[in-house]
């Protein structure tokens, strides 16, 4: 358990709860109750029932034949793209909405980048009949129009974040401000493994179903539950944490986290946090973030709205600093090419986020017979416009 959170809310040097006093009662209430609620048998039953009947879990672990031929290893895709609402995000929102109900909350707020977390939140709010307000950067509202329409149809109010770079970071700021102003009846469903403790741990627990299933499926399909590599893309890092969770303590399994290099790590238009960032505090936890020498947060860039974030979750910072995880990056161009390749080799249009993880396969060398799992965190329907424009389709 050396990579898990300690009783003070830290992962090594990272984590904690750097929040203004106005948020303290809410975050403290959550900290005191989250494990108790999650471990409760009735909660587990309802959570897993919904994951099965509503989300459609377990998601398949698919041995991608043509990928395997191309790379000379067994390439498995963990098909989170087949979940209801099209990405891994719903694993977390189902968990958090049930938890919010147990805490007696009446109103749900969330931030969203690509819109996947916003849709997943609006979906569970419709399902459980709770008021829903989604903060989304103005720039993202434009580049993810279909998801905005879905959220509205689901009954959510979508509020544009107009400060800063008008993307995910700013949407997160606005959601935090909303929570400060609504301290009693509102639960904030953070969509990634970021934020003050206990959020990174709570979201990781809800997403850990990804690696829990993967282990079982690998055992059935290969006779061993131990792959050689697991790969996932990292913005804040929730699908990666879900994919790494049950493999973290097994040092034989190599963990590869793929960040968005944007137009290149040295271009000034990048979101490669571990490469460009330094230790500091962002959105309530101590982690690694892109910042100026004066400690001002730097605006990130990625073609993928879900990876367009200047930080990573504290547990990722810990995996990076300890060397347990290998953190690499992929450019906008490489990810789009990988998205097209996946579509044409396997008949799966991946989200551009997930295409970053796929793109790194091109840079690796495998031995025959090695087992490699890539988390295909979401489907690419929301990115069709970007793909079509890029490839002149």
């Amino acid at each position, binding site marked *: 358990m050396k990579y898990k959170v300690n009783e003070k809310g830290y992962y090594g040097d990272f984590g904690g709860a*750097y929040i*203004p*006093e*106005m948020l303290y*009662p809410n975050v403290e209430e959550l900290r005191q109750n989250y494990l108790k609620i999650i471990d409760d048998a009735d909660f587990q039953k309802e959570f897993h029932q919904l994951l099965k009947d509503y989300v459609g879990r377990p998601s398949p672990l698919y041995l991608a034949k043509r990928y395997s031929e191309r790379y000379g290893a067994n390439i498995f895709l963990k098909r989170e793209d087949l979940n209801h609402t099209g990405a891994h995000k719903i694993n977390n929102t189902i968990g958090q909405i049930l938890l919010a109900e147990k805490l007696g909350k009446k109103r749900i707020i969330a931030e969203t980048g690509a819109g996947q977390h916003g849709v997943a939140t609006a979906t569970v709010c419709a399902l459980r009949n709770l008021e829903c307000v989604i903060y989304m950067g103005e720039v993202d509202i434009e580049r993810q129009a279909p998801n905005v329409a879905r959220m509205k149809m689901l009954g959510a109010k979508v509020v544009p974040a107009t*400060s800063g770079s008008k993307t995910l970071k700013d949407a997160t700021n606005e959601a935090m*401000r909303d929570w400060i102003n609504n301290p009693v009846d509102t639960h904030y469903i953070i969509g990634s493994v970021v934020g003050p403790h206990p959020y990174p741990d709570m979201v990781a627990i809800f997403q850990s179903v990804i690696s829990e299933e993967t282990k079982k499926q690998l055992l059935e399909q290969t006779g061993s539950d131990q792959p050689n590599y697991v790969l996932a893309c990292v913005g804040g890092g929730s699908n990666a944490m879900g994919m790494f969770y049950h493999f973290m303590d097994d040092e034989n399994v190599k963990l590869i986290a793929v960040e968005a290099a944007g137009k290149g790590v040295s271009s000034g238009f990048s979101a490669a946090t571990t490469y460009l960032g330094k230790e*500091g505090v962002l*959105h309530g936890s101590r982690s690694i973030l892109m910042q100026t020498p004066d*400690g001002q947060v730097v605006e990130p860039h990625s073609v993928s709205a879900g990876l367009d974030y200047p930080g990573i979750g504290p547990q990722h910072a810990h995996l990076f600093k300890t060397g347990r995880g290998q953190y690499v990056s992929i450019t906008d161009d490489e990810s789009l090419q990988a998205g097209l390749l996946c579509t044409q080799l396997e008949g799966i249009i991946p989200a551009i986020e997930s295409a970053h993880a796929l793109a790194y396969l091109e840079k690796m060398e495998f031995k025959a017979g090695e087992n490699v799992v890539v988390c295909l965190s979401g489907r690419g329907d929301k990115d069709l416009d970007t793909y079509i424009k890029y490839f002149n389709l």
Partner: protein
Amino acid sequence: MNRIKQLFQEKKNILSIYYTAGYPNTGDTIQIAEALEKSGADMLEIGFPYSDPVADGPVIQASSKQSLDQGMTLKLLFEQLKDLRKKVTIPVLLMGYVNPVLQFGVENFCKACAEVGVDGCIVPDLPMVEYEEFYAASFEQHNLSNIFLITPQTAEERIRKIDGLSNGFIYLLSSSATTGKNLEVSNTTEDYFGRIKAMNLNNPTMIGFGISDKQTFDKACTYANGAIIGTAFVKAIAEGNLEESVSTFMKKFKV
């Protein structure tokens, strides 16, 4: 004795003004401080701007962004404050978020504050437990007061703990809100202020968030040792002649 403690011993109905360093223009920081003291402010809170100020409403956010866009940094602020104590005698606090402090270095930050004559700090996103463990030693060594916030939702036990860690005053938020909301003194707010007053804390209290005019200021003073005005002042100096704007604004409170 530090200037903050002395002020609270000598005065009632203390008027403290917040403004953002380097706003409206980079070079205005000291001039505003002098003008405020001249027109009757009892204490100053100089905000060092941050790119992601989650506890602030739109007005202070915008002033922070403008200041940063014009080149303000913490390092530049300390250079501007080099001769602070030749020009300003009232207590001065710095207010800002924890990440710039971390990058500057906690010990360096405290040392720089002491060197220029800053009396204390307000860092809203620095939690009490982190302060105790990693910051308190440097703050104490340099004789800086760390000011904690409490809200209507802060539990009594926690308020006692904050009182024990404080050595200046405690910042009472009139409601749980980002800066710039208007103070509506409802029965619940009065109950809360009354409850705090009845606790007989060791430290004096100042009410902040939502104080914008003489009426709300006077009301706040019936429950606390004084009040803090931020957003309303930042709005008032956005345009026009700085000294005139400051003096016009301050006259409203000195009737």
